[in-house]
């Protein structure tokens, strides 16, 4: 028998979360809850397992294909299980002027990964603008911003993660 998607605790959180999300929209517009519902699923499981997306679709009264269509459009949804820490490095213009390309190369070297690759512990990605242009260079680890990064500060951060 297949393992259930959620633990009892997770199931409780998912049910309460879906009910809260649906309360924000007109009753005939359940599908509007797609983005928050997918986020809820990802917060619980760390990614969007297909059976989870089917469940979201069922609650929102849409087809599973619709859930997949939305999930695959936005870069913050993980369709595959990522590493424990997802590191997004901004290399857009303002950050690049403060050395972000070299910071990314340093990270690739330290983690043994090329941007776009994952291992069990890390997913490293090059991203487009995190709105930290005044505190460049910047990256985020699992949606937490780290700004004005020097090599020393980045080493300190990596020491915490490893």
């Amino acid at each position, binding site marked *: 028998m297949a393992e259930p998607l959620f633990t009892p605790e997770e199931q409780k959180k998912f049910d309460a979360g879906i009910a809260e999300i649906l309360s*924000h929209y*007109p009753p005939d*517009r359940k*599908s*509007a*809850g*797609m*983005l*928050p519902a*997918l*986020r809820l699923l990802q917060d619980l499981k760390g990614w969007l397992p297909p059976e989870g997306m089917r469940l979201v679709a069922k609650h*929102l009264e*849409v087809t599973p294909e619709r859930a997949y*269509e*939305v999930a695959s*459009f*936005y*870069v*913050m*949804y993980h369709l595959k299980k990522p590493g424990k820490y997802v590191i*997004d490095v901004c*290399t*857009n*213009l*303002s950050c*690049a*002027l*403060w*050395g*972000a*390309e*070299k*910071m990314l190369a*340093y990270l690739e070297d330290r983690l043994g990964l090329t941007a776009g690759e994952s291992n069990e512990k890390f997913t490293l990605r090059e991203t*487009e*603008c*995190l*709105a*930290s*242009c*005044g*505190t*460049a*260079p910047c990256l*985020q680890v699992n*949606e*937490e*911003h780290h700004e004005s990064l*020097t*090599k020393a500060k980045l080493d300190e951060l990596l020491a915490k993660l490893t």
Partner: protein
Amino acid sequence: MATTAFEPIISGAWGQPKSWTLDHYRKRGGYEALKKALEMQPAAIIDEVKKSNLRGRGGAGFPTGLKWSFVPKDSPKPKYLAVNADESEPGTFKDRYILELDPHMMLEGIAIASYALGVHTCYVYIRGEFKFPAERTQAAIDEAYKAGIFGKTVLGKDFQLDCYVVRGAGAYICGEETALLESLEGKKGWPRLKPPFPAVVGLFGSPTVVNNVETLASVPHVFSRGSDWYAKLGTDKSGGTRLVCLSGTVNRPGVYEVDMGTTITQLIFDDKYGRGMPAGRKVKAVIPGGSSAPVLGADELDVALEFEALKVKQTMAGSGGVIVMDDSSCMVRCLWRVARFYAEESCGQCTPCREGTPWQTRLLRKIEEGRGEPSDLELLSNVASSIAPYPPIGLGNTICALGDAAALPTHSFLMRYRAEFEAHIHEKRCPFGDKPWGAFGDWS
């Protein structure tokens, strides 16, 4: 982050302890403007906003009161307010500070706008990467509900208003107002063909106003001190102050509140703002209004950071993102970075944008790496023109303005820095060698 301001209206409380709380906001006179507005007729509120000359701060600069007046008064459908907090244009990071440091100012603007428009549900659409700003905003909304500002009555008035935060999931295009509405409806962010405009057919097919965070945060000031006072702060066509975001090669990047007469030169060199260039560096180029705004050369910077003045220079005030490049920066590489952004963020709906933006990026990479041929510059120009010809600004071949945004930088960089592009091709290498990003390229 430095926050020195000339006439601090929006940023006045930044840096003060707990500036984001309801208590702090009320001690500064917060929600008094809402009380005044609730005593007025909705039509009179819209007239006051019109008189204030408040223009949208999201990028397009459309007059706010006029936008509000487009909402049909006799529609049997519910009306909606959608707050555009999907700040994603490279070089722009101002709305983030409002959400983090003074969210109640925006919430008060939401309440006034909702009452004026007959809106009972507001969605604050915050870009997905803004976890902390979203948490701060939600906490402020929770405070507002507890204090009777939102909920079944607004400050005791027989008027119901609910306000919800919705986080995006990483798509720049969702800052385009119709894409934002699609995303709010739980779909991928594909812009809609206009007309009909959202004021008539918006969220769930109902009349909807989409306003930027800074725009709504400006609204309480129109009522607390009057539309005449607010209008006098700006120019004839644009009232109030502006938040501008200074980034790139300057000594003190940051968000600064300026009056409409402040020039780019002042912003970069004044001690109140950027405090000049790093030692030994000169300004080479400046993008004045977010990455989509046509670039200006070093000899064009004595221009006010204001909608009309920048338009005269064939560029735009846009989202307030001023990016400074120094004299050791490679313009081909800078443009490649910008082009790459638009290629990554194109939604793929329109062929010129879907095909053209990656083509631009590939050509620029080829030129930067010294593999360019003389015909590539003409080709690059043609590809950009296929997405959006230049000039005019804003009449591209795509459904939304992302196509314009992708083509404008290419046209303007090619126009102003053509010799640098040609040098790459003739020398078959980047003339800036291994330090193409200038003084700060050596990250350590």
